């Protein structure tokens, strides 16, 4: 297996790891977003709580939860490794850089956006994952009720919306970037991939951001 380690430690291999884990996390977000969007049914959280109950007890889902954390950690550590490596490649910085002339700011800021996302994620996991998995809070109140109570704090709502904006830009570059890294650049498919990536990034971040906002303004019952 030395050949695999050698390849994954090359500049291209690190990017391959980034792309595969990124696409895995992208697929997770579809499920997470879809399930949470059931709160908009305004059925008093019945559908949402059923979904949460299923996700919290199904053995296959619980196993995938471990895989998900593994993928997330790989994405974080590989990103950190790339950032540290890349930083060394230009020891003397330019005095003037006109980055906007040749690339999008968010494509140059994936590390920064990722760091913001990590900070958000720590807060987010503390709010809901910690509550539902590591405490016995679910015995006295549903996850829906917990969401209602967490999002009464305007600061929490602001942090969540900022987190969703970071997520949107991270995905806007990351989605199509993953395909390019995997070598999937073709005049027939690339325009479609870029379009789907843009729609995905906007829809996912907008639907997620709508949740704390809707709770705060009492639009969800």
């Amino acid at each position: 297996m030395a050949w695999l380690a050698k390849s994954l430690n090359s500049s291209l291999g690190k990017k391959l790891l980034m792309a595969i884990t990124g696409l895995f996390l992208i697929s997770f977000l579809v499920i997470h977003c879809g399930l949470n969007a059931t709160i908009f049914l305004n059925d008093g959280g019945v559908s949402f709580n059923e979904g949460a109950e299923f996700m919290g007890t199904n053995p296959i889902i619980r196993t995938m939860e471990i895989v998900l954390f593994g993928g997330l950690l790989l994405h974080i550590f590989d990103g950190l490794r790339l950032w540290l490596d890349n930083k060394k490649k230009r020891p003397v910085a330019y005095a003037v850089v006109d980055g906007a002339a040749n690339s999008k700011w968010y494509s140059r800021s994936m590390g920064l956006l990722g760091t913001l996302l990590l900070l958000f994620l720590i807060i987010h996991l503390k709010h809901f994952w910690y509550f539902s998995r590591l405490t016995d809070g679910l015995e006295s109140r549903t996850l829906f009720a917990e969401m209602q109570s967490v999002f009464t704090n305007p600061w929490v709502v602001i942090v969540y919306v900022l987190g969703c904006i970071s997520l949107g830009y991270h995905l806007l570059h990351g989605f199509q970037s993953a395909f390019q890294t995997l070598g999937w650049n073709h005049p027939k498919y690339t325009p479609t991939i870029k379009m789907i990536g843009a729609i995905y990034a906007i829809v996912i971040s907008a639907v997620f951001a709508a949740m704390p906002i809707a709770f705060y303004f009492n639009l969800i019952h």
Partner: protein
Amino acid sequence: MEGHLNLTLKIWRQKNANTAGKFETYQVSGISTDMSFLEMIDVLNNRLIQEGDDPVAFDHDCREGICGMCSMYINGRPHGPNRGVTTCQLHMRSFQDGETITVEPWRASAFPVIKDLVVNRSSFDRIIAAGGFISVNTGNAQDANNLPIAKDDADEAFAAAACIGCGACVAACKNASAMLFTSAKISQLALLPQGKAEASKRAQAMVAQMDEEGFGACSNTGACEAECPKGISLENIARMNREYFSATFSSK
């Protein structure tokens, strides 16, 4: 004076690879808008020589956009504000009278400064030497039609071969990555039947050398493609990745 510019130049001066450099400010006046950027530096250097100062060292050779020597990072962009050009093809009409222009060398650990604006790009040569060739037994010349090549493939290989190895991709990249250069050199051979035979081996050898030289990884920002004077496409990087990953899993 119509058609003539007075400019302030902030130019990076560095005695050699071992000393620290710094910016020096120069005033130039009466610069014709028809001059190329290099001719403007020539005017400055003439004056510096007459005044007994050390002229600004910069690389240049053909002065017609095909040699790729003129490595100048001008106002925050490789080869200045225009797209698809080298520094010799950049004309002073692209600047305003009274403007301050900052000129720096390419900055990358794999491109050490030799003097002022001159950088050592032999790391590119070593990437080519690692695999940017085809192994053939020389014998009698074959009939030209022995190997049918589709026009589209020939065109694509030629577009990749248009790379002049100037290093603008490395200079523009936030990671000082040489992926666009390396992938163009891999593609120009991988697309043709003569080069296809060794495509996987070549990709592995050239990528390994690229990493060895200290170039960064790719963030897919597309800055390299945007700043490339020869319009080398990001599709080449995707092709390099395909070759490299398939070689990883299939090579013996």
